[in-house]
């Protein structure tokens, strides 16, 4: 990973679903090298930056999807097109697409879903057959499902209240897929734990942690793994299934 501090300009900031927004930015995206990496946004009036996963990117363009959680993400909803943002880009290791095999299974919950979109796009481009299990609390919170389908991925929706797709958790969706070759996942920790238990192949898991710096300097985001202590921000956020210590 090579960190780059850059100024990106907002071109779009629109609601996609209940409390979920898509932020499109233009500028230098050259430091972004793999799906599953993240950027760290400076918001005016807040001391710490806010880490948000890269949903998709191309040369000069970046898409993020964020959920309103606290004061910072609330303030983000007010950023009009034209707003300039100070962003650290190229953070984190990201997913390794070379590990996918022929039929990768992507499992995402809530705002764990966005990084899987950029991943799916690259896997599809490599001719892989992609199945995505996307978990939401309820129908009104669904986003990105159509975009996954447009890529050509098979999409299985699970909602906790049954208001769309399967009633249940992403693990219920996973049960419907028998022949996947590898697993990529991102979502809240309880979900990751359940996916870990249900997972029948090897795989990569993307974690969240509160961060001081986001580029490996402060040890704010450490976790223990079978291969030693790691920093979620720099040695992660993606860990191999085999190294995870719950």
């Amino acid at each position, binding site marked *: 990973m*090579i960190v780059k501090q850059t100024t990106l300009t907002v071109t779009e900031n629109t609601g996609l679903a209940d409390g979920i927004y898509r932020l499109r930015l233009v500028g230098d995206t050259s430091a972004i090298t793999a799906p599953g990496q993240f950027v760290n946004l400076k918001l005016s009036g807040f001391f710490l930056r806010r880490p948000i996963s890269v949903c998709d990117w191309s040369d000069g363009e970046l898409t993020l999807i964020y959920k309103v959680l606290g004061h910072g993400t609330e303030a983000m909803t007010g950023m009009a097109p034209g707003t300039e943002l100070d962003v650290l880009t190229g953070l984190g290791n990201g997913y390794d697409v070379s590990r996918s095999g022929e039929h990768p299974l992507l499992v995402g919950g809530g705002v764990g879903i966005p990084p899987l979109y950029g991943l799916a796009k690259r896997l599809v481009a490599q001719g892989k057959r992609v199945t995505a299990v996307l978990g939401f609390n309820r129908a009104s919170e669904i986003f990105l499902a159509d975009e996954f389908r447009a890529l050509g991925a098979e999409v299985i929706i699970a909602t906790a209240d049954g208001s769309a797709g399967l009633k249940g958790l992403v693990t219920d969706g996973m049960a419907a897929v028998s022949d996947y070759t590898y697993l990529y996942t991102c979502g809240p920790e309880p979900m990751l734990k359940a996916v870990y238990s249900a997972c029948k192949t090897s795989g990569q898991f993307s974690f969240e942690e*509160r961060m001081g710096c986001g580029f*490996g300097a402060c040890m704010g985001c450490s976790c223990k793994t079978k291969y030693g*202590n790691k920093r979620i921000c720099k040695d992660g956020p993606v860990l191999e299934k085999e190294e995870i210590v719950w």
Partner: protein
Amino acid sequence: MVNTKVTLCGIEMDNPIIPASGTFGFGYEFAELYDINMLGTFSFKGTTREPRFGNPTPRIAEYAGGLLNAVGLQNPGVDAVIETELPKLKQVFHKPVMANISGFSVAEYAEVCEKLDAQEQVGWLEVNISCPNVHGGGAAFGADPKSAAEVTKAVRAVTKKPIILKLSPTAANIAAVAKACEDEGADGVSLINTMPGMRIDLKRRRPLLANTTGGMSGPGMFPLAVRMVYQVYEAVSIPIVGMGGVTTAEDVIELMLAGATAIGVGAANLVEPYACKTIIENLPAVMERYGIENLTEIIGGAHHG
């Protein structure tokens, strides 16, 4: 041409800027971003006798003036620092580095300092006495003059390198602690370490940090740092490394006027990875604006007049 050089405990520095311990790792992350040889020096991650994972996460919270951290001194232990980190550092940093040492007993401080004293790369030993004394009921060594003096004495016995005692703002009388360190042979003091604070997660109705409390740092602590540096300057004649909330070249001048000879920059590095580079680059213009030719001439300047 203004002169940004200062001399800290006998070692000349190109400028007074010292990334503060715990916010600059062992330098590599920043060396990938800019040439860290432009720094005065830097203080590496607090090192203990044994390797430590530190506290459980979450370790980080935010407040209006900066952040709280409860990293809990994660480090690979002094032996790994010597075997792995220092040789790696040598590739990218060619100046004397400041070693930051933590401990939970007087003996541990002495042992770690003795090992680091033997390292040629180490210019100064910065001894962090904000840690709890496991033999002293858990109060911080830096909380009272007596235990601060004990640590100083023990460390003084094992090294001829400059030792700088790093003081905690929780001390009832920080000037008295500084004086006690000076009396036992400290070459300098550095201050302030973080101030214990706390945030509560409204959803979980529990302390937000796994460790319950965490140390406050960042610009919200700056006036506290200025006040304490000012007070310590009146109590001792050894040099002071001032820190706490510094983010700009103006802040550097302000803390030096209060009495600091060199300046630590902590939290700012985390949110602005180029913070120290920017401060160093801005320093000459700010010095000119305030009519300062030699930085050393303003040390403690706010006390006269």
